[in-house]
């Protein structure tokens, strides 16, 4: 039986909220600790609804990140597409993990995302040390249990399908 779409605007809403948090001004000293909200939210939806959120939506979300952050067009799109592909390959295994195991996995995923973003950055003249650009991956991993619980509640409450 085919699944009838239900309340999918919640997915879009969560991405818009993540984008907004992504451009919130932060003090200079902690700006490297800003979690990659969009990537974490994307990983959540990709794990829970892999039939809805996949590589194509990763590209669309990535392009909107680039537009809102005024980056090189395609920078985050490329990185998110890679993350989406790995998520789609392994969602069945990851779903059964414990929270802290999932957190570690999120660290690796966001790390891969940062790697690609930084790779494109180095093409236009900015580059960072690995210790620096992996810090967002660390904060994203720490944020994962919280964000997962929040989104899970929202998904069940609005029966997103």
């Amino acid at each position, binding site marked *: 039986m085919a699944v009838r779409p239900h309340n999918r605007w919640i997915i879009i809403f969560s991405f818009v909220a993540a984008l907004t948090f992504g*451009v919130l001004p932060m003090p200079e000293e902690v*700006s490297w600790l800003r979690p990659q909200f969009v990537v974490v939210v994307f990983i959540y939806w990709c794990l829970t609804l892999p039939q809805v959120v996949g590589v194509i939506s990763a590209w669309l979300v990535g392009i909107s990140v680039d537009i809102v*952050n*005024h980056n090189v067009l*395609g920078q985050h799109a490329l990185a998110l597409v890679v993350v989406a592909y790995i998520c789609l390959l392994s969602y069945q295994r990851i779903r059964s993990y414990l929270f802290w195991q999932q957190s570690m996995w999120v660290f690796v995923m966001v790390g891969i995302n940062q790697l690609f973003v930084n790779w*494109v950055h180095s093409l236009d003249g900015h580059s*960072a040390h690995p210790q*620096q650009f992996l810090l967002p991956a660390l904060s994203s991993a720490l944020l994962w249990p919280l964000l997962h619980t929040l989104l899970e509640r929202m998904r069940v409450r609005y029966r997103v399908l």
Partner: protein
Amino acid sequence: MLVDLFTPWLKPVKAKLTTVSIPFYWVTNLPARLGEWGQDNLVSRDDLLRENASLKQQVMILERKLQGLASVTTDNVRLRELMNSADMVAEQVLVAQLIGVSPDPLVHKVIVDKGSRDDVYVGQPLLDAFGLMGQVVEVGPYVSQVLLITDSTHALPVEINRNGLRAVVEGVGDLEQLALRHVSNTMDVQEGDLVISSGLGGRFPRGYPVGVVKKVERNPGKPFADVFVEPRAHLNRTRHVLLVFRDDSLATEVEALEQ
């Protein structure tokens, strides 16, 4: 992506797309705006009176200074006329407000609330009340992006105010620091020297303060000295900034002063 990086084909598309991002910055700007509103409206009468008095005093002092400057300006223009110099441009400014900063810590860009509707153009210099901040790199209809002088891809021709020594100041990706490039060990640069824009290259107007020399390291083993400059502009604190337009209206200004 490569098309965007290495060709100008996507420029107009990106300029249009910046409009899409405005609501996000508007939302994230709300707390700051609320704070500003509170500071403006939730103050006691005593505070306002005191502020008013101090502002009046400041106006008096500045007006006195301006009286001195008026004669200096006319003198300067006359001398330049004598020397047949073409350096007679006065600048018009437009006050703009910062509405966002780049979320990426590697990129030192800010977004200001003026765009092509207000005749902002690419390459336009941006100042705050203390010094030079950067230049406009992308113009949308309502907002434009400004590359700060501290960004690691930015360089700016300058001179030392004390002796007119020319150099190039580069961003190093640190908001508190700039580097003076290619200063040989024997050049006369001291700590505390004021660095001003030299106007070479024609992009920035001449004579705006850029920063103060903080540290000079002369290492005989290296071909050049390491000179670090602290930017004068409050790059991470200012909200109100000035966009400078170039025009040739100084002549009329001088006439007004002479009357």
